[in-house]
């Protein structure tokens, strides 16, 4: 590359700029992507304390049998982890018999353990015997409030239809959840909202809501002195905790998992949940179950965790941005010519942008290639990043005046040379602004990747949300905000380095 020109400030060779941007992005992206060795077995868990703890315990049990294992914590609700298990993104996760019957097998019959096991076999999924406790759904209230109103049983709610009821989104939609419960009890309360499980407890404590759904083994029930309303018309089925695993799981791994059958009773589970929430640390709870310290995760320092989250975060945002540039700029060039194809491209990118990010993630998860993986997060972020780049590329090119276009054509440059040497450099500033917008969006939205187990700075935010622990939330939120500011600053710098002085006058 010939950078030795006559005047010092003329070294910007017009055609070098865009490739240079790509190069920088590639370097940043690959530098931030540490290699990971794939473990043999992956344990998944749902997004609530007990599931995290059971996931940790399963991981430890397999580690004790010398099997390499990884735990993807808090991946989401039932459907997400079930799809992940069927798709092979995870091998094991903790589940409850009632949930299996209602949500997975979609039946209202009360099935025996053996019937459930046989039904699961058709999906290529195996099931352990119960771990030893029944974690049923329950409705809970603050003791003082319940006593004052004289509410003891669920049917007592009949007399207090104006109570504020805050329910998890999963419970609101479940086949064994709120709708059938109100039908069963013939309740028609007027004041029902959807709220996150951990945040719901805080709302209950502060009196913002009066009633919420709970798991009977939740440690918060004792901690906040809550009462469980009696299921006096026997609505809730049994929710015996079990582990589901892929039939392809090795015999040793299954054997290690089956050691946990009957090992945890209700009281033990409540204690473990309390331990997890007290220490803000799920592996600490697993430690207390095994009476040992893990040789794996417990030694991880904060700076190491921060690096792991941040590098994964950059990997997600960086790769998706790179893809968005690689596809967005050419699409923008095509769109700048207008016509039907141009409208289709801009229309598609615009529609994608209007899909809520959470919904886009959820929609991609069931697709064969994606599932529960960083790939899904990168794909979703890529789709989000497209619009600003496509639109700015198209606009930047369309804004070039007719006399400039005619001068370029009249020179006798071929169409591609005109684009590369004249049009793209003139539009570079607008295009770069689009890339910057995408980068900032991606860095922010990448926190949602933790919802589908793809890691990143959303991981501590989600854990903190579950544990209702602000310090943990900030461990993810502060670096994410700093990262967004850094990205903004870096692009302002790039603007000064890459954009020809003649365009900045």
């Amino acid at each position, binding site marked *: 590359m010939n950078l030795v020109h006559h005047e010092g400030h*003329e070294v910007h060779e017009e055609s070098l700029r865009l490739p240079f941007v790509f190069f920088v992005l590639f370097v940043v992206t690959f530098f931030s992507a540490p290699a990971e060795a794939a473990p043999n077995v992956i344990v998944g868990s749902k997004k609530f304390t007990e599931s995290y703890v059971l996931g940790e315990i399963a991981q430890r049990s397999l580690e004790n049998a010398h099997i390499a294992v990884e735990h993807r914590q808090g991946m989401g609700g039932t459907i997400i982890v079930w799809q992940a298990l069927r798709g092979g993104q995870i091998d094991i996760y903790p589940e409850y018999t009632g949930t299996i019957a209602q949500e997975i097998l979609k039946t209202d019959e009360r099935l025996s353990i053996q019937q459930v096991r046989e039904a699961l076999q058709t999906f290529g999924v195996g099931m352990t015997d119960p771990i030893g406790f029944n974690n049923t759904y329950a409705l809970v209230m603050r003791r003082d409030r319940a006593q004052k109103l004289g509410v003891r049983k669920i049917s007592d709610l009949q007399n207090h239809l104006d109570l504020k009821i805050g329910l998890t989104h999963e419970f609101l939609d479940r086949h064994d959840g709120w709708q059938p419960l109100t039908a069963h009890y013939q309740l028609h309360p007027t004041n029902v909202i959807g709220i996150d499980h951990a945040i719901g407890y805080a709302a209950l404590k502060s009196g913002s809501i009066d009633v919420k759904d709970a798991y009977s083994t939740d440690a918060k029930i004792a901690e906040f002195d809550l009462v469980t309303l009696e299921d006096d018309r026997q609505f809730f089925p049994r929710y015996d905790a079990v582990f589901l695993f892929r039939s392809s799981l090795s015999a040793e791994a299954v054997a290690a998992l089956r050691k946990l059958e009957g090992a945890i009773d209700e009281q033990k589970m409540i204690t473990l949940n309390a331990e997890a929430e007290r220490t803000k640390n799920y592996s600490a709870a697993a430690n207390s179950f095994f009476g040992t310290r893990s040789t794996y995760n417990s030694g991880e320092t904060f700076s190491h965790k921060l690096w792991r989250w941040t590098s994964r975060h950059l990997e997600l945002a960086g790769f998706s941005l790179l893809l968005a540039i690689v596809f967005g700029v050419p699409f923008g060039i095509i769109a700048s010519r207008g016509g039907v194809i141009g409208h289709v491209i801009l229309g598609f990118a615009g529609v994608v942008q209007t899909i809520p990010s959470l919904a886009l993630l959820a929609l991609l998860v069931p697709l064969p290639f994606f599932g529960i993986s960083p790939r899904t997060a990168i794909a979703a972020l890529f789709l989000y990043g497209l619009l600003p780049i496509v639109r700015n590329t198209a606009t930047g090119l369309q804004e070039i005046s007719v*006399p400039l276009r005619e*001068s370029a*054509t*009249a*020179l*006798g440059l071929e169409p591609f040379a005109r684009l590369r040497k*004249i049009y793209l450099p*003139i539009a570079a500033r607008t295009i770069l602004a689009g890339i910057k917008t995408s980068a900032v969006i991606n860095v922010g939205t990448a926190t949602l990747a933790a919802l589908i187990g793809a890691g990143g700075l959303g991981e501590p935010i989600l854990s903190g949300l579950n544990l209702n622990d602000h310090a943990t939330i900030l461990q993810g939120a502060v670096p994410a905000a700093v990262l967004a500011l850094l990205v903004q600053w870096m692009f302002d710098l790039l603007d000064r380095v890459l954009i020809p002085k*003649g365009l900045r006058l």
Partner: protein
Amino acid sequence: MSALVELAGVSKTFGGATALSPLDFSAERQKTTVLIGPSGCGKSTLLRLIIRLLDPDSGTIKIDNVSVTDANVQQMRRRIGYVIQDGGLFPHLTARYNVLLLPRHLGKSEDEMSSRLSELCALTRFPESLLSRYPLELSGGQRQRVSLMRALILSPELLLLDEPLGALDPLVRAALQKDLKEIFARLQQTAILVTHDLAEAAYLGDEIVLMNEGRIVQRGSIVDLRERPANNFVSDFINAQRSVALL
């Protein structure tokens, strides 16, 4: 020797509106042919057709006896210099790289280009010290000189100028008219210049082509047009710009 540019039966319409009725036109070698006429008479369209920014609806356009086709259009454009009213300089490139864009693209040697650039600076009276400036750092007159250098860098056989001095104030305009006349004479340049200023046409043109409503009304010297107008339009057009009636 035949004319360098020859148009036969060339017409052009824009969405139903006739810009050029079928017409014949030619430009002689080493002469300056001036296209003049009121706004919308088709003079700029004629220039755009020659450099193929527009395709004709009918007729043939030959340059040096060769028809312009899709296959040879880029080659043909490189043999033609093109200067427009506001210069059409690329804002992201300095004056130097605006001028050198095409020769660099064609892989000409740096030494050859440097000496050619110095020659052109002297010819167009453009200070070499300003070559490192961006278009927005130059005055209107300076920009037109750079644009002229860009058009001349590969020693084109044909120079097309579309109201090159139209946006300049009278003093700068007069200086550039004088310089253009010298340059054309020195280079024995074949040039076609579009203007709406009869004084400029009279001063620079060897041959004046007066157009109206997409047709050529009369061609000849300024004396021909003034003394022997083909019709009332010609005499009206001449009389409207009285200052040259005394020429």
